[in-house]
């Protein structure tokens, strides 16, 4: 599918002859040209944002460092650095969990969302119920349910397929994602003007053809921002898996703290993890905002 920007975005530079708009128009024009060359929006992480980040880090570690020096212990930064490789592996595991549950949840959610616009009342109603049920359930409770209800291995054809906790966690987290994606799909479909359905019908398209060729391609653009937003939320929720014992970054952090037996490591360590999540999720949030602005201009 082609995703095209609104014509006003690119045309603003040359088009306006209002003197007040000229400098801004020129800037916007240059920016949109750059982004077109890149083929992707440029992240405008400003110096201010980075400064805040660094300040956070320095405050966390600096404070603890001062205390460590006073007590004559090994500097915090050295102790922290020793654990970075291990913790970072844990963080990557969080990302893997988030990507896989997002993928699973999206596939299930799209199916569920399409069932919600079915013409058959039983299908429509049951999918509506499932969507509402999982959308209004606490994520942690769903996670617990999956961890304790799913078997630890599956026996099929004489083989034992192990079913580790992290896979259960992926399934558990994908349930709320599924419900939210289902609502995103339903909302996007309903936001398409009824004239599109009428036009397709009058051209003898049947319902399936209308949905797949006319309606859904127009929905993709509208679904992208809320879908990415959901992904950022899910990524931050992956640390819930530590409660059920999956060795992701928070579980590892707890183990590190237990091994180090020093309390002054606690704040810098969790601070570092916070920063990692921020660095990963913030660009997604910015990109989402950018897409929302870009698509807000109607044709």
């Amino acid at each position, binding site marked *: *599918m082609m995703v095209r920007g609104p014509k006003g975005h690119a045309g603003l530079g040359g088009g306006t002859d209002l003197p007040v708009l000229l400098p801004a128009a020129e800037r916007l024009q240059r920016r949109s040209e750059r982004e077109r060359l890149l083929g992707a929006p440029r992240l405008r992480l400003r110096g201010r944002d980075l400064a805040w980040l660094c300040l956070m880090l320095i405050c966390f570690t600096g404070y603890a460092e001062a205390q460590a020096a006073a007590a004559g212990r090994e500097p915090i930064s050295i102790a922290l650095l020793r654990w970075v490789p291990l913790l970072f592996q844990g963080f990557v595991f969080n990302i893997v969990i988030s990507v896989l549950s997002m993928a699973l949840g999206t596939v299930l959610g799209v199916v569920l969302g399409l069932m919600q616009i079915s013409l058959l009342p039983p299908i429509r109603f049951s999918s509506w119920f499932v969507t509402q049920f999982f959308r209004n359930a606490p994520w942690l409770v769903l996670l617990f349910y999956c961890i304790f209800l799913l078997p630890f291995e599956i026996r099929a054809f004489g083989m034992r397929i192990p079913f580790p906790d992290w896979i259960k966690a992926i399934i558990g987290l994908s349930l709320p994602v599924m419900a939210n994606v289902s609502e995103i799909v339903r909302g996007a479909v309903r936001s398409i*003007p009824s004239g599109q359905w009428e036009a*397709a019908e*009058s051209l*003898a398209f049947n319902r399936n053809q209308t949905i797949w060729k006319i309606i859904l391609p127009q929905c993709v653009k509208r679904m992208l921002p809320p879908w990415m937003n959901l992904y950022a939320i899910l990524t931050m929720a992956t640390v819930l898996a530590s409660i059920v014992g999956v060795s992701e970054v928070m579980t590892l952090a707890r183990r590190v703290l237990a091994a180090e037996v020093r309390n002054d490591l606690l704040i810098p360590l969790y601070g570092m993890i916070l920063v990692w999540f921020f660095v990963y999720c913030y660009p997604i949030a910015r990109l989402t905002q950018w897409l929302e602005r870009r698509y807000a201009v109607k044709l």
Partner: protein
Amino acid sequence: MSAAWSESDPIVDIRDVHKSFGPVQVLAGVSLSMPMRSTACIIGPSGSGKSTLLRCINALVPIEKGSIKVRGIEVNDPKVDILNLRRRVGMVFQQYNLFPHKTALQNVMMAPITVLKQDRAEVEERARRLLRKVRLEGKEDAYPGELSGGQQQRVAIARSLAMSPEVMLFDEVTAALDPETVKEVLITIRELAEEGMTCLLVTHEMGFAREVADHIYFTDRGLIVEHGPPKEFFSNPRDPRTREFLGQIL
């Protein structure tokens, strides 16, 4: 396609059609018949059921009572092959309703390829010819958002024509356009009518109706109050409601 239908019979034959939306009766026994290659205009105050009547003809809106036959096909028959009916009846809307994610050319090509499973190359050639016919040569690769209202409406006309319909329905197609672009759309419709396409228009363009129509129908409160050839209808309206309406408009 009933075997009983021949070209001398009316291609659109509407008898005593009733339709309500909830408690509001929109059509209260409308009858109308169009011979092949004729052009008819439906005029009347807003809310008098004109658009609903058009939507009934290609089964976008189901009717409650009466009969609508297009080329001998009973639209209201539950067993009717809707695809077979709709490919014979083209419809153009007030709001154009082009598919915004497709270019002008793709908009025209889509239905014949998807619905009629026709050969892509052959459809593309015909689509280009149709866009030329509505004077949009060079706009094939433009997206609807890049076209003016009048251009979009002409793409919509070409899109309907691509299905090779036998009847064209126009639902206030110039109502959303600015005055300068109204003309280019009307010229396109007039050419179609002159080529022998059966056209049924709902319109507020009285001058145009007078010029192109073979027959004018005036509706009010779900009924056809008066109808006749344009000369007679406009110069000598008999019904007081028609006179009042024409007095307000002309």
